[in-house]
C-alpha cells in the first residue's frame, strides 16, 4: 500500500495543484463586502443621442390612396439612466422633407410629420443607452413629397430629428440627414389612380334616352390621382374589346367597345370619343395632390355613354374597361 502511495504521490501532487488553481479562480471571483454606508451627490448629465435612423435606412414606398406607418429609431445615452429620460421630458421625433424644416414648421402631410403624430417609446437598454423606436401608425399619406432620383425634388431627402430631454430639461437633438446622395432616405415616386370616388353615386336610373338604336346620357365617373406625382389616365377597352353576354369568353352576343364613348365634359352620344383597344390619353395632366380632400385639380371626371345599335340581341352584357395611370 505504502509503495502504491509512493508511486502515485507525484500525480496526486499535480492534481492537488490543479485543483488549487481552479479553486482559487472561483474563490477569487466572489467578493465579500463589508457593510459600508456611503453618501454620494449625483449630478445631472444631459442625454447624448447616438444613431438616428429613418425607415431602417431604406427608401420609403407609399401606398396609393392610403397611408403607411412611419418608422424611425434612435439610441440615447444618459448617465443618470434611461428612466431619467423616460420620466423626464421624454423623446420626440419629427419626420420631414429636409429642405422644408424649421423650428416653426408645423404638421403638413406633404412634408412634415411632427411630434404630435410620431410617438417614441423606449424599447431596450444596453448599459445606460436606451434604444427608442419612434412610430406613427398609418400616418404617412400617399401624396407626401417624393425626393427620389427622377423626382423634381431629387436633391432633397427625408429625415428624422430626434429630441431627448431628461428630468432636468437638459436636452439633445440629432437628425438622420445624410449629405451623401446615394445613402440619403428618399420617398419614392408613386404613380397611382383610383376609380370612382365622390361622383360614383350618379342616379343612372333617370334620363336614359332610347332612339333608333339605344343610347345613354353621358354618365359621370370619378378618377382620382392617388399617387404623389402628376398623372395622366389612359383609357381603353379591356379584355375582348367588347361587352358580351358570355363574358369573358365572348363567343356569344357582343357590343363592340367602339359603341362606348367617353369625354372629360358631358356630351351626347356621337360627340364623345369612341372607346378603342388602343389606349388613349385623357390629357388631364392631373397634378400631384396636396391633400386627401377631393379637389378640382387632382380629381377628374370622365363621362361615359353607350350606344346600342339597332337589332342588338337582348341580353345581359358584361365587360371591362381599362384605366391606366401614366406619368405626366
Amino acid at each position: 500500500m505504502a509503495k502504491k502511495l509512493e508511486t502515485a504521490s507525484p500525480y496526486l501532487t499535480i492534481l492537488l495543484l490543479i485543483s488549487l488553481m481552479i479553486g482559487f479562480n472561483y474563490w477569487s471571483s466572489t467578493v465579500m463586502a463589508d457593510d459600508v454606508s456611503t453618501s454620494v451627490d449625483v449630478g445631472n448629465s444631459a442625454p447624448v443621442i447616438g444613431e438616428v435612423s429613418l425607415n431602417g435606412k431604406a427608401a420609403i414606398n407609399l401606398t396609393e390612396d392610403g397611408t403607411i406607418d412611419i418608422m424611425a429609431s434612435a439610441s440615447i445615452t444618459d448617465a443618470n439612466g434611461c428612466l431619467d429620460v423616460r420620466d423626464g421630458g421624454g423623446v420626440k421625433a419629427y419626420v420631414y422633407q429636409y429642405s422644408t424644416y424649421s423650428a416653426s414648421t408645423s404638421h403638413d402631410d406633404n412634408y412634415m410629420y411632427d411630434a404630435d403624430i410620431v410617438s417614441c417609446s423606449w424599447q431596450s437598454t444596453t448599459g445606460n443607452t436606451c434604444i427608442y423606436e419612434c412610430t406613427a401608425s398609418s400616418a404617412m399619406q400617399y401624396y407626401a413629397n417624393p425626393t427620389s432620383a427622377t423626382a423634381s425634388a431629387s436633391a432633397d431627402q427625408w429625415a428624422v430629428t430626434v429630441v431627448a430631454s431628461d428630468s432636468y430639461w437638459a436636452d439633445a437633438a440629432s437628425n438622420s440627414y445624410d449629405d451623401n446622395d446615394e445613402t440619403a432616405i428618399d420617398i419614392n415616386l408613386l404613380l397611382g389612380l383610383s376609380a370612382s370616388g365622390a361622383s360614383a353615386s350618379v342616379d343612372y336610373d333617370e334620363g336614359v334616352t332610347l332612339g333608333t338604336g339605344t343610347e345613354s346620357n353621358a354618365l359621370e365617373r370619378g378618377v382620382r390621382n392617388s399617387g404623389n406625382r402628376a398623372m395622366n389616365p389612359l383609357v381603353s377597352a379591356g379584355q375582348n374589346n367588347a361587352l358580351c353576354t358570355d363574358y369573358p369568353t365572348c363567343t356569344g352576343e357582343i357590343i363592340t367597345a367602339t359603341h362606348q364613348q367617353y369625354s372629360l365634359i358631358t356630351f351626347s352620344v356621337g360627340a364623345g370619343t369612341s372607346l378603342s383597344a388602343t389606349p388613349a390619353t385623357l390629357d388631364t395632366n392631373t397634378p400631384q395632390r396636396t391633400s386627401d380632400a377631393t379637389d378640382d385639380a387632382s380629381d377628374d371626371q370622365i363621362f361615359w355613354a353607350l350606344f346600342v345599335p339597332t337589332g342588338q340581341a337582348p341580353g345581359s352584357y358584361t365587360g371591362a374597361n381599362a384605366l391606366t395611370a401614366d406619368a405626366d
Partner: protein
Amino acid sequence: MKKIGPILIIVSLILFLFCANIAFAGFGITPSTVWNDHLLPSSHFEETIYLVQSKPEKDLLAKIEIDAPEMKDWISIDRGFEFTIPAGSQQFPIKVIIDIPQKAEFKNYDGKIWVKTMPLTKEGDGMVTVALGAIISLNLRVSSEEIYGFAFRGITIKDAEEGRPIKVTVTLQNVGNTESAPSKIHLDVYDAYLIKVFQSGDITEIEPLKAFETKEVVVKFPNKLALGSYFGSVQVFKDEKSIGEAKAVFNILERTGFIYKIFSKWYSWIVLIAVILAGIAMGLRKTLKQLINNWNSKRRERKRQRLEEKLKKLEK
C-alpha cells in the same frame, strides 16, 4: 310589348354598366421608374417595384407587357408575365430584371412596362369592371463608362466577449457598374457618451460586391476593450472619402470558456509553472534514480567480476 322587352333589357344593362362598377378601387406602382444611367454591356440590374393598393379586397390577376421594342429581350420579371396579387397585399413586390447584351449599342433606351390588372372573381352578369393599371417608365443608358460607388445602408455590431474580435456587419449597395469593394471600413469605439475614443481600426481587405448588388459585409476588428457598453461608429470609405457613417451600441462581455476562465488570472500561470516545474523535477528525479541504479548495478557487476577473478586466482 314587343318593343318594350329589348328596351327594358338595355335599360337594365345601362344601369348595371354604370351602377355596378362603383368600385372604390385604386392601383399604383412605386417607384414608378426603372432608371439607370450607367449600365455597361453585360450588366445585370434589378429594381424592385411595389404594386400597391390601399384596399386590396380581391385577388387580382396581373399581366405585364413590355412596350420597349429595343429592350424587350433584355427584360424579365421574377414572377413571370402573369401572376396573382393576393387579396390583402397592400404592397406586392415584383423584381424587374435587366440583362444588357454584350453587343448593346451605347445610347439611351426608353420604354414602358404596362401593368394591367383584372379581378379574378367575376363581378356578375351585366356589369362592366374597371380594370386598373399603371405604366412603369424605363429610362436606361448603356455606355462604356465605368462607375465606382457605394450606398451605405446600415450596420449591426454584435456583442463581443472580452478579447474576441468585434464583428461588424455593414449593409452595402454597390451603385457602381463593376464588381468592387470599398477602400476601407473604419471603426471608432467610443464610450457610451460619444466622448472618449477607446479604440480605432481600419479593415481594407473587404469582400467585393457585384455590380448593383446589395449585400451584408462582415468585418472583424481586434478587441482590446474592457467589459462595458460602447458606441461603435463605422465609416465606409470610397478611396479617401467617407461615403457614410452609422453608430451602434454594443457590449463587451465576460469570456465564458472554461479554459479561458482558468487561465484568466495571473496566479493561474504561477500555479501552472509550478506544476510544470514539479513535473520536470519528478521526471528528473526518476531519471537520476535510474542513472544511479544503473551506475550501482554496473559497480556491483564489476565488483563481482573482480571477486570471481580473485577466487579463481586463489583456487589456482
